[in-house]
């Protein structure tokens, strides 16, 4: 069982990234996966997070207890959620928004300037979440590239598929290049 926390601030598309990962595992691989959102009206406009659990067995307990993987797209999110990481564990982070700090040594970290990549290569920072997912796929290998791409395709609006696929590829390639 792998427990993943995806976090950032509102507007970064945190939930969608979580959906992509969860759906890839549940529908396009032979796995179980569940996704739970952290709700809370006090959270309006501030940090935002989702939990994905991927497992070979039926998932019974719906929430993440300790994360194996933390995807952090904001420093605040990193600060909030890094303490719940297991050791060994993994942090996948937006390298221009997050500076990982205070992690124990058996936690692997993978950074990518996803916002800039999205902005520079696709003209819109909103694709950062899918860049992150591509990167995540490459560095964690939790789901296959193929499954993840199918999942992206099924989840984004029709007219954005092309850009989102590109975003995924950019992130994936970045991961392969820097952390292969």
């Amino acid at each position: 069982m792998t427990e993943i926390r995806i976090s950032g601030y509102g507007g970064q598309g945190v939930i969608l990234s979580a959906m992509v990962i969860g759906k890839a595992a549940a529908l396009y691989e032979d796995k179980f996966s569940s996704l739970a959102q952290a709700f809370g009206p006090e959270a309006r406009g501030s940090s935002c997070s989702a939990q994905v659990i991927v497992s070979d067995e039926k998932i019974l307990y719906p929430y993440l207890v300790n994360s194996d993987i933390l995807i952090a797209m904001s420093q605040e999110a990193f600060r909030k959620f890094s303490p719940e990481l297991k050791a060994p564990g993994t942090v996948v982070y937006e390298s221009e928004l997050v500076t990982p700090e205070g992690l124990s040594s058996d936690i692997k970290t993978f950074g990518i300037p996803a916002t800039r990549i999205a902005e520079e290569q696709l003209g819109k920072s909103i694709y950062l979440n899918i860049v992150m997912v591509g990167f995540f796929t490459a560095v964690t290998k939790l789901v296959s590239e193929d499954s993840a791409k199918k999942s992206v395709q099924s989840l984004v609006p029709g007219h954005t598929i092309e850009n989102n696929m590109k975003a995924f590829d950019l992130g994936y390639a970045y991961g392969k290049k820097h952390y292969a």
Partner: protein
Amino acid sequence: MKSDPKGVLTGVHYIDGDHAACEGALAAGCRYVAGYPITPSTEVVERFAARIPHVGGLFMQMEDEIASSIALQGAVWGGAKAMTVTSGPGFSLMMEHIGYAVMTETPCVFVNVQRGGPSTGLPTLPAQSDMMQARWGSHGDYEIIALSPNSSQECFDLMITAFNLSERFRTPVMFMMDECIGHMTEKVVIPKAESIEIYNRVYTKKKPSEYKPYEPVKDLIPEMAEIGKGYNFHVTGLTHDEKGYPAMNEENQHKLVGRLMDKIRNYKDEIILIEEDGIEGADVVVMSYGITSRIAEKAMLDARKAGIKVGKARLKTVWPFADEYVNKLSKKVKTIVVPELNAGQIVREVERAVQGNCRVISVPHFGGTVHKPEVILAAIKEGAQSGNNR
């Protein structure tokens, strides 16, 4: 009868319980929803609002839950299969009309995605603390059917059952979800329409002159008449006779309310759905429903690893309560453990049914999150040690 393919989103989906419940309703033939937004149920109606123009039907956002809970009944009498969807505070507002649906035998579904209470409580966090309200929240005597799913998939599947039971027994059915199930995204497989069994409304084939709207025809249940076909039927929330006319005295009260209760009580076997595992030879049985049943299952598996003979009995149907089942069970086991996301509601029914035959351990939790599996595990262990006829 098979499902209308228009409403069936056949395929494999990754959706949460709220969305799955909506798809279940569409697959069941629900074409009218009157609703009012409230966390954490809103996604059900949001999805319905988006889907229904394409399927053929209506979503009407009403001015409040009171209007919703009666508009849906108007729609049913107008020919629709219908539901309304809400959470705690809205459910409280619907109480009067749950009674109206019972009294007028209006088949329909009330969905409650439970959140922490009382009052505004914890709008975005889970609880199962409206279970007794689902049974007792409206004034007067009645029986009710309440189902409780424990996964996205079951939100779909059991919703179809909910609609079918409502039509079969001409009664409102409470679909008791919780925030956790409602907001948890999982794989949901929606089958082809032709493999979905639908219980369609029984409209009378009698001539108007022979028809009595509240005359029990089969299994204590009267047939409905279609609107606009000359039946000139009358529907009232007053105590009424078989013609449907107000008839306010002890005799009619006895006959009518007695029948309304019996039509459920006498068909418990058909209505009560329980998922069992490892009951035979068990020392301890964990009895639970909804999201808690998943934590309970985890605790059970852990307990089995620790060598405890423990089984599960998951109530998919919470009301009518499985008295006889529990009573029988109580004679076979040491302890029944009842974890719930509330202060101990259904455990009272268990205690009542057990009649001192075995030990009952309540594992309450006021909500806001789910139980820790360890807490249930501890109760199982305790139950395995002590118990049996005290």
